[in-house]
């Protein structure tokens, strides 16, 4: 009996992906996805995959049950909104890997696959233990093979006693693992996120940043094997924090953007040589810098130290109730002609879709 269910299953997965693609804009705004990035698979509820039939409406819900209960008692097991529990049957949860999701994201946003910058392509050497040889250090002795050889020899020479199956190795029985060195082209990337945590960045703004960062992460991971993320927060001073803190921390006070850029410069100089790393720098802010002079300093930092070494500098300005939001304009005026700098404004969750598209449509 040969079953072709696998074909049907594949078709179904394909249709599900199509459904997700159609609703991608909605998925991009779903904050539940975040926090599951450690897991390989994400469960996604897919709506509207059931076939419509002529059927009775839910307002006619009634039935016969069995068990105890007086008139007026709630039927056990039917939570609030029994119409809702009925509804649940039509939603199917489908497991999908984050990689597949990123793939869909890429296809739907028509993001080109990122080509690692040519001269930064490096080859990593990796040793793989795939061979066998007669000589080697004892720590690499292949026990199973050695044992088998000894056993074979003992049986052939008649020394083997099934009642007392002792195996004694000789020198000629021993075999050792050996390695081959494999050159693997490898492209590394580092993502440096910077966030303004001055008083004007509220929870809503942070939520936007979280979502945007999640999808940036998902897409770049799809494109690089090894990826590192660093997080910088700043108000008037800047400091490096871990991921958790990055999205939680809240400070009051003013804003001096240049402080963050200086720290980013230091990070890159010390840890990530542009020869070996694809470097992505993202800055989220409400665009309210403390002074004109600081804005000017930022621009010169960018042009002289940062931009030449980067794949991409993405500046994402979130709307805020306070402040002028002028920084994005400064960037446009001063550095509008630079290719590696891309800016976008995110006012609501719905803008994330377009923002991601803006950032990566150049394929850098």
């Amino acid at each position, binding site marked *: 009996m040969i*079953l072709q269910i696998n074909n049907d299953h594949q078709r179904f*997965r394909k249709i599900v992906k199509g459904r997700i693609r159609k609703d991608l804009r909605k998925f991009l705004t779903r904050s539940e996805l975040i926090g599951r990035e450690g897991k390989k698979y994400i469960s996604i509820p897919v709506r509207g995959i059931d076939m419509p039939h002529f059927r009775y*409406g839910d307002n006619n819900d009634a039935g016969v049950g069995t068990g105890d209960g007086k008139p007026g008692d709630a039927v056990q097991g039917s939570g609030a909104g029994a119409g809702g529990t009925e509804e649940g049957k039509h939603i199917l949860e489908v497991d999908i890997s984050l990689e597949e999701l990123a793939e869909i994201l890429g296809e739907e946003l028509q993001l080109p696959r990122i080509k690692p910058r040519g001269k930064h392509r490096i080859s990593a050497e990796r040793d793989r233990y795939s061979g066998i040889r007669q000589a080697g250090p004892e720590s690499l002795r292949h026990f199973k093979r050695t044992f088998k050889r000894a056993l074979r020899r003992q049986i052939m020479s008649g020394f083997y006693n099934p009642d007392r199956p002792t195996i004694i190795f000789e020198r000629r029985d021993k075999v050792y693992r050996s390695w081959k060195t494999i050159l693997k082209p490898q492209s590394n990337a580092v993502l440096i996120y910077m966030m303004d945590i001055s008083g004007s960045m509220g929870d809503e703004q942070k939520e936007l940043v979280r979502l945007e960062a999640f999808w940036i992460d998902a897409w770049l991971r799809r494109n690089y094997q090894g990826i590192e993320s660093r997080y910088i927060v700043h108000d008037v001073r800047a400091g490096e924090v871990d991921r958790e803190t990055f999205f939680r921390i809240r400070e009051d006070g003013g804003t001096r953007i240049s402080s963050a850029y200086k720290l980013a410069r230091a990070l890159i100089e010390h840890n990530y040589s542009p020869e070996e790393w694809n470097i992505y720098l993202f800055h989220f802010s409400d665009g309210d810098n403390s002074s004109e002079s600081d804005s000017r300093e930022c621009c010169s930092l960018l042009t002289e130290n940062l931009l030449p070494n980067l794949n991409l500098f993405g500046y994402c300005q979130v709307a805020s109730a306070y402040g002028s939001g002028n920084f994005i304009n400064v960037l446009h005026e001063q550095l509008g002609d630079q290719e590696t700098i891309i800016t976008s404004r995110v006012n609501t969750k719905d803008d994330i879709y377009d923002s991601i598209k803006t950032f990566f449509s150049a394929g850098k």
Partner: protein
Amino acid sequence: MNIKLPKEIAEQAEIIAEYARQEGLDFYPTIFEMLSSEQMSQVAAYCGFPKRYPHWRFGMEYERLRKQHRYGLGRIYEMVINNDPCYAYLLADNMFVDHKTVMAHVYAHCDFFKHNVWFSKTNRSMIDEMANHATRVRRYIERHGIERVEQFIETLLSLENLIDAHSVFVRRNPQLEPKSQPAVNHTREAARYPAKGYMDRYINPPDVMTAERTRLREEAAQDSGRFPAEPVRDVLLFLLENAPIEDWEADILSMIREEMYYFAPQGQTKIMNEGWASYWHSTLMTRYILNDDELIDYCEHHSGTLATSPGRLNPYKLGIELLRDIELRWNTGRYGPEFDACDDMAVRRVWGKEKIPKERVIGRGSPGREKIFQVRAVYNDVTFLDEFLTPEFVEAQNLYHYRYDPNTQRMVVVNRDFDKIKSQLLFALANHGQPYIFVTDGNFRNRGELYLTHRHAGADIDIKYALETLKNIHHIWKRPVHLNARIDDEPILFSYDGEQSTQQHIDERVDAPAHDF
């Protein structure tokens, strides 16, 4: 690919079959196969058939079943196909006692398939037929592309419940119809009473005759224009015969329809069939097959199968209890006018008790046993409950009637009123709990539009689903389609013309279809 049926299980199958035959069960040859749980999910997604036409719906079902199994939300113990020979599957990682229970259960199902009249018209070589369908669909896919074929099937699946499960029993061949039917007035002549010449204009007044003649002529004109001549329940058949579809589409439509007719009796007899199978696995296991050391496991699994939960009726439980109730009633004579007339509850409760012999279970040949054999042959769920549900039974089973309460947004117990419970049960079972949809005009407004009518039976249809379904019918009919349905006691006409869905209140300004309810 499948695990070979172990010898001891094959031996047990023979032994159990022999006991079952002794008790009077009669079944097709039954072939057991053993599957791993993964394979079981695969086969279950195909409704038990090894081969079905390729479609993603089966993949979806497979995903659902596999997940359900993985999270321990449910496992499929048994599956059996109505076919000659019957095929049944055993789950490999079950215990030995489970296999025995399942086999006993399966033999009773096979007996039911063979003898219940509602199954009498089903194709007994359905395994071959399904494989045949698969081949045909695959050929169409090669010719027309998977997208087109799959899309068309998807459209049809949305309409697949629009069949008339009773139609297979209707004999439409006019030669077989009784001759004594009242002669239809084919001449369309106004009836003239015999009268002597001079009395004629009093007995058959000319103005009445003229009026009658006009009426008949009008009726004739109307009748000849009626299409279809009668409201049609089998919407799929109507589409098959009249919709402008290509040959391959018509072929697929006929296959889907055939499969639905094959599955229909299983829907019509769910409670009886499972009740019958549970009755027999319980009887055979406890009386003949069970070993002492298997008792606890058997009890656990048997009670798991029959477990009830509030708000949900377990067909296994309802079926077996009702069959046992019938057996008891017929053994003790608790039926017939004499019993019905008795309204002393104390007397009713002990009625005929002396007829029950000392040993608890009454076997073959007892009136009760004979009665349930008869019941399994001629009833379906609707008639079964309609005939045999009694107030005593409802009370003993602790049944109640519940309804959605908009105030608390919960299901609440309404009462334990027998009539209400019975009518609710019958409503849920009639037409498999689905609305009655008829084609009432195939040439609506003389513009080739399709007019469907929902015959309201106490519940409104779901508007959102109806609109989507209309779109799918439009795919096939290719002209505007309409559905007349009562929503909150207002007649509404839902329409889809290929571009947009509309709905309007039906009043005298809206044209009437060829047939009206």
